[in-house]
């Protein structure tokens, strides 16, 4: 329910189709992206201590960066709901492919003990 409210609130906000974001927002988003890139590389220096978590951390930071780019640089935050659904559908089907692939790998390893 709260998600639906959130969407409709954004819809009203984005009703003006030529939404102009303040310049400062662009600089803040770019600044955050630069900081996160340095953070990614910083964690990479510790990858021998982190072990398998190194990849998890790297891709979690990448996901945050991707969200920033999509929401503000690509203006999806202020775009129509239909456009967000169209783009989101790409990710949904990609997640499906990832999910089925991981299940396949997992079951092969548990049954045959090799992939």
């Amino acid at each position, binding site marked *: 329910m709260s998600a639906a409210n959130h969407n409709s609130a954004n819809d009203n906000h984005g009703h003006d189709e*030529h939404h102009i974001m303040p310049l400062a927002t662009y600089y803040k988003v770019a600044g955050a992206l630069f900081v996160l*890139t340095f953070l990614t*590389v910083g964690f*990479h220096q510790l990858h021998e201590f982190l072990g398998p978590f190194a990849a998890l951390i790297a891709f979690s930071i*990448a996901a945050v960066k991707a969200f920033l780019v*999509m929401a*503000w*640089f690509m*203006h999806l935050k202020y775009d129509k709901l239909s456009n967000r659904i169209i783009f989101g559908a*790409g990710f949904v089907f990609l997640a499906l492919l990832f999910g089925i692939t991981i299940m396949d790998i997992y079951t092969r390893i548990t049954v045959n003990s090799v992939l």
Partner: protein
Amino acid sequence: MINGVPVQEHYRDASHQFASAKEGIWLFMATEILMFGGLFVGYLIFHMKYPEMFAEGAQFLDWRLGFINTLVLIFSSLTMALGIYFCQINQPKKAVGALAVTILCGAIFMVIKYFEYTHKFHMGIFPGRMLDLEMLNHHLHEMGKPAIVSTNLGMYFGFYFCMSGLHGIHVILGMCMISWCLYRCMRGDFNPNYYTAVEGVGIFWHIIDLVWIFLFPLLYLVG
């Protein structure tokens, strides 16, 4: 022309035309996610199957170059967004400047890629069966490093060249389309009511950044 917008006759009005253009771009972007996503899934499968071979391949990538390229692409995404912003507030001269910087950043990215690729070709590293293991081991021997154990190392570089190469092709095409926007902007085609081309090309340029955000840790850091 309606309020400075060249509305095609098959659209109701300018906003109908703008909405249709945006919808088309987003459909295209969904296919881009699926295309690159397929390569990422392929990488995952074969990384699980041959972890040692992927680790051997990943040692030939210099994360510092990938890191510089990441910073360059993020900066170019900012200038692209600014290009659209300056079109929206009717400052075409500043928009032209921002777009020119974006093209320059794309060029810097490709020059770094060129040096990475030629260095690999020089060592005999090519995708798939074209990889010259003998030549590569000879180079490694000269450098005093251990020889390659995996005989199927070409598969890693098949993924490397396909993924970074397809991304590079996107950068080149993006640069061409930004140049077209820059030319139209200089010609005075755009105004706060009409900047559809810059907006669409901007979304394409940001997806190039988006793909690189995942490619950089995948290829250069995690291996």
